[in-house]
């Protein structure tokens, strides 16, 4: 087996190192931390000639990233989940500056409740920010995509920042065989960055991110981002062809798997698509013509390519590892829109699975294909459908019991009892009489009632002054 074993995080760090980036603003967050730990070590020991700077937050980090890109540096940074949301304002701002940089997001479910494992509400919240988005399935794809992302971002027909997504745990902490691209070949594929557009120099000052008043001016700049995203589709094809010529690995905007004669198709993205492919092969062994379409480039969304692949299938299920409460699966809506204008729209099921990193089991994949076969015959099936089983619900009920939450709708007044008995109340030990350890609500006063209370506003001899 060629290559070395690398985690997704290490692959991302290698992507930045091979891309010969100039500047790395950083802020750690699980499950991304290993990326910046490696880059910090390499820059400190001098094996990577880049400037590594820790910032006080993801908001500052993204601001520094955009500003450095505006100064003509090749910039890499990475975050995850809450960090992406904390810096969210700057995503739109940087895209509006029209500066190229690559931001890796390591997907992790969003709070509340707070968690660590992957789902895609974090990355998909940024889908309208103006950043391009490429979602990866393997550790190999992480390093390759970062190199492609710089070509895409820095192309004058695009000139937009790129978000590269990988799943927390299932990629970030998972080692797989990775072939690191040869540095000399990387230089041929991705030459040194020579900015000729949005960069600030001491001898050539300019104003960046100016204010505009008047919708017509704003509309002009905003819509330019959309046109650049549309151009990015064609540029992507060129970059992918060139990458394949250099390194022998081809990545399309979408990846078809066993689709030639497929009747029943899963649409998936990111690391769990691998499990979807395993399910397809199992179904094929049982004689079901199954296939899978993996979404890779999500912004710009390759609607024509998606529609061309899915049109005319007997039934299609879109598995969203995300949830838009009040709507359902996010990419389902986009796939449905892509198919709307086609002549042979397949029945289209919406599946919600893998939230917070929940496994998608073989049995659940089987259930999806069962539903697809029913939908193909015109039967009504539940959609959207959450992948959730009876044992999981029973486990949930046990947890609610432990949390003291079985029974009534609302918290009973004064409820303190632990469901398992013992430790029912917690009060400091007191040598005094019953209740003597309770703190009074207001300090006792030796003087008259309220005498030690400070008035809410200073007493004034003069007239009342308004603030």
């Amino acid at each position, binding site marked *: *087996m060629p290559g070395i*074993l690398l985690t997704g995080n290490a692959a991302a760090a290698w992507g930045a190192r091979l891309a010969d980036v100039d500047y790395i603003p950083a802020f750690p967050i699980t499950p991304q931390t290993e990326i910046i730990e490696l880059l910090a070590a390499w820059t400190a020991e001098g094996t990577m000639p880049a400037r590594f700077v820790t910032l006080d937050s993801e908001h500052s980090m993204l601001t520094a990233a955009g500003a450095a890109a505006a100064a003509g540096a090749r910039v890499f940074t990475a975050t995850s989940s809450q960090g992406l949301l904390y810096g969210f304002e700057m995503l739109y701002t940087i895209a509006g500056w029209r500066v190229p940089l690559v931001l890796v997001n390591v997907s992790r479910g969003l709070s*509340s*409740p707070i968690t*660590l494992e992957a789902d895609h509400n974090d990355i998909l919240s940024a889908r309208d920010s103006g950043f391009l988005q490429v979602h990866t399935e393997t550790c190999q794809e992480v390093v390759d995509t970062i190199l492609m992302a710089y070509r895409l971002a820095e192309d004058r027909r695009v000139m937009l920042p790129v978000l590269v997504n990988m799943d927390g*745990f*299932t990629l970030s*902490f*998972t*080692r*797989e*065989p990775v072939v690191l691209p040869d540095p000399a070949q990387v230089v041929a594929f991705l030459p040194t960055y020579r900015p000729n557009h949005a960069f600030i120099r001491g001898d050539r000052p300019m104003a960046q991110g100016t204010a505009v008043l008047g919708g017509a001016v704003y509309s002009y700049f905003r819509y330019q981002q959309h046109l650049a995203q549309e151009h990015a589709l064609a540029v992507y094809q060129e970059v992918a062809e060139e990458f394949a010529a250099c390194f022998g690995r081809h990545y399309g905007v979408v990846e078809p798997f066993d689709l030639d004669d497929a009747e029943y198709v899963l649409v998936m993205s990111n*690391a*769990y698509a*691998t*499990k979807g*492919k*395993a399910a397809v*092969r199992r179904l094929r062994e049982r004689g079901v013509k199954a296939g899978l379409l993996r979404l890779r480039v999500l912004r710009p969304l390759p609607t024509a390519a998606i529609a061309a692949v899915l049109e005319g299938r007997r039934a299609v299920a879109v598995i969203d590892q995300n949830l838009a409460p009040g709507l359902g699966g996010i990419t389902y809506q986009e796939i449905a829109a892509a198919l709307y204008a086609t002549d042979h729209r397949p029945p289209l099921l919406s599946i919600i699975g893998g939230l917070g*990193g929940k*496994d998608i*089991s*073989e*049995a*659940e994949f*089987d*259930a999806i294909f069962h539903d697809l076969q029913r939908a193909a015959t015109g039967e009504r099936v*539940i959609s959207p*459908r*959450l*992948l*959730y*089983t*009876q*044992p999981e*619900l029973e486990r949930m009920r046990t947890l*609610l019991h*432990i*949390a*003291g*939450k079985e029974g*009534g*709708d*609302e*918290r009973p007044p004064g*409820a*303190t*009892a*632990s*469901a*398992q008995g*013992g*430790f029912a*109340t*917690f009060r400091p030990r007191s040598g005094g009489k019953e209740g003597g350890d309770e703190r009074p609500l207001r300090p006792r006063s030796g003087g008259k009632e309220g005498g030690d209370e400070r008035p809410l506003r200073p007493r004034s001899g003069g007239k009342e002054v308004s603030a």
Partner: protein
Amino acid sequence: MKTASRILGSAAFHAGYVVQDSPVYGAERRGAPMAAFTRMATEPIRERGAITRPDLVVVADDTLLTEPAAQPLAGCDQECTLLINSAQDEATLRKVAAHSGRLVVADFTPLVLATTKTLAGLSTALGVAASALVGLTLEDSLAGLENELAEAHLTPSQHEANVQLAHTSYVKAQAWEPIRARAVEAELAPVPLIDMPFAPPSQAAPSIYAIANSPQRQTGSWRQFRPVLDRQLCSRCWLCFVWCPEAAIALDADEYPVVDYDVCKGCLLCAYECPTQAFRVEKEVR
């Protein structure tokens, strides 16, 4: 055990297999239960995350067998080989584990402590033992070990001790017949999906009404070494009482520290901080 999983992964990769390994953990505290998974195959691996039907399960500490937060035997069926690092006898462990398949019991801990002076060496012993059990050669196992030690920042003598430990562990494990991967994947029983029922907001929000129940989470089983106080040496300075990160040390009526061994995780900060060396450190024997 993440390292043990990686030693096995690197050894299998060195032998020419396609490999995938991954740890899962949430509470990143030394001693907390954690799991790591290693897959090896002759073709691309299309599964991810936890292994549903393992061929081999290695349990580093027998207290994990009954630990609800760990459940190391999940998915461990008749065809799964179970290797437990334990000083207990096979009959007792078979009963505790309720495992009907092949069971291998070995106590690597004394060997590890004698060779590397630290329990971290258990990763080396069990990683290499697992490599032997899946039929990898000594050369592949040592190559796997070297790959992981390269990132461990060990001194030359620590490095040498681990290599020596690996040799001994491999020879010990070589006496066992290698496991065979299950011939045919058993079909899993279908688990029907349900419709998620609506829950009232009190149950739909991730709040906890039952207060002060964290003492019920007893962490004494995490302990490998036990701090034992010698009252003759104790000056009652209370530093251990202050330093204990788990508040597992109380003061008795005479103001001597008392360790709650149901909760003490064996971090030994008390022994480290004690100015009069009043704590003895004893290997935990269960």
